[in-house]
């Protein structure tokens, strides 16, 4: 049913297309017979100009003032910026671009690319410029006790004379850490634990003795083990032996 009605419709559409295309097809063959029409010389050309007085009046109006007035420069800073932007404009778009400007553009792109690369790779080339590496921004909350600034003999003597053996054990242990640091056997950092230093001393002859000192310190300082004068003497003896061996070996 649908096929039978659509067939005559398609045929009539085809016929219509062929009929419409016929003049174009036939006209393509006789393009040499072009008809030349005569120029129209009957209508006179009359130029119209506005009156000179009216033109002057228009020119006086602010709407027709196309040149923007240059604002008065109030300060040296604004003069500097005007000259800078003028210089930059000439550099990038004027005749100076071919000689100097394009190299400035290339350099800017190069620096930007390098910055992105360093950022992505998280590299720090501060050392390459002959300076020490930028320290990590560690904001130590506690007032870090600088073990390099403590006068250990004096402080130890004070604590021992006062019978404050707990403090004396602490100061003695800090003294040991300080000595190990100055002899480059450990890398002192305030956030490191005693066992990290112990691991740093692995495969050295100091590990076992330092382990004993660490155990004594931890029991007395963190475990708040009460010491008598006799037991402190034992701790002190161990520490002094360690320090003496350390000094003699290093010498």
């Amino acid at each position, binding site marked *: 049913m649908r096929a039978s009605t659509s067939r005559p419709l398609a045929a009539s559409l085809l016929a219509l297309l062929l009929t419409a295309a016929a003049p174009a097809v036939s006209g393509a063959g006789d393009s040499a017979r072009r008809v030349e029409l005569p120029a129209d010389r009957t209508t006179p050309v009359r130029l119209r100009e506005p009156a000179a007085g009216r033109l002057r009046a228009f020119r006086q109006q602010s709407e027709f003032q196309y040149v923007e007035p240059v604002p008065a420069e109030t300060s040296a800073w604004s003069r500097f910026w005007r000259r800078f932007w003028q210089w930059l404009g000439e550099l990038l778009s004027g005749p100076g671009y071919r000689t100097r400007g394009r190299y400035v553009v290339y350099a800017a792109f190069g620096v930007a690319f390098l910055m992105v690369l360093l950022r992505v790779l998280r590299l720090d080339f501060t050392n390459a410029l002959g300076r020490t590496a930028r320290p990590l921004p560690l904001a130590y909350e506690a007032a870090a006790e600088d073990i390099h600034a403590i006068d*250990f003999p004096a402080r130890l003597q004070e604590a*021992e004379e006062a019978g404050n053996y707990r403090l004396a054990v602490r100061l003695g242990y800090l003294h040991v850490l300080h000595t190990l640091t100055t002899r480059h056997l450990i890398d002192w950092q*305030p956030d490191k*634990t005693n066992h990290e230093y112990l691991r740093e001393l692995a495969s050295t002859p100091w590990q076992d003795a330092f382990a004993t000192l660490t155990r004594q310190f*931890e*029991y007395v300082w*963190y*475990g708040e083990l009460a010491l008598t*004068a006799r037991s402190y*003497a034992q701790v002190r003896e161990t520490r002094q032996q360690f320090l003496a061996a350390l000094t003699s070996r290093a010498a």
Partner: protein
Amino acid sequence: MDNNFPLTNPDAPEPAASFAPRSDFSLLTTSAEAIRRELGKVIVGQHELIELLLTAILADGHVLLEGVPGVAKTLTAKLLARTLSVPFSRLQFTPDLMPSDVLGTSIFRPNKADFEFRPGPIFASVVLIDEINRAPAKTQSALFEVMEERHITQDGTTYPMQEPFLVLATQNPIEQEGTYRLPEAQLDRFLFKVQIGYPTAEQEVAILQGHHAGFGGMPLDSVQPVLSAAQIAELRQQVRRQHVEPNLLDYIARLVGQTRTHKSLYLGASPRASLALLNGAKALAALRGREFVTPEDVQYLAPAVLRHRILLTPEREMEGTTPDEVVRQIIQQIEVPR
């Protein structure tokens, strides 16, 4: 240097200092060793995981185990439950799970014309919640009360849990298909979040050898109970008596406090995190045979305690920063009390 120290009669009959534990840790150390041995029958490696699980048992805290499928999260939890001679139940969390499926429900008894409460699977001593992040927040919130307060309230009646009460939950990383992000309030109730990684090549060979030799068939049967509920209670009492030097309390507070002001963090850790760090450190010190906590214990546990309690800022998250990296940075920023 300090040679002028005046000794007060060194020959006097004073006892020499004994740098050894004054408490008896024999039950604790032998039990821990036995549990390690039992778990080691099936689990290859994973020593840190086992140590943290033992710490959690002693510290009375829940543990969230996170790892990709197939790294023995569920198996480890089931084996640990088996080493404890206490009631055990398992819940498989699914997207259509309802709170009443977890807690229990009241059913009407026509003969007595009243309601009777039927306890849900949460009523056990060790509850394994498998794939916890496959249930939506509605079901998760059913766990809030029971995980923190150790009881549930149903129809105005409070039902206490029995002691010990330990939730061991497993989850896939949240990027996995069909998972939800757990509510912060619930995450805060886990003492530790332990991340389980892939075994090393040697460990994987050992797993294959064990399986090939036939140990992979019924691994649960080979594991024997080690601790009873009464023994766990006794050990927990001992852990509570552990000594903590005041400077260490300050150290814990500063570590946790730093998470609240750190520029990379959108949400810092709560005071519950400080308590978790303290309790965990006490348990770990006991497990290591010490009766006092050291900064080493605190630093060791800080990532497991804090990583699930902090939220990174969107910028840091997009940069690929991990919570563990921020925790490590915070540890570096705070001086060890010494």
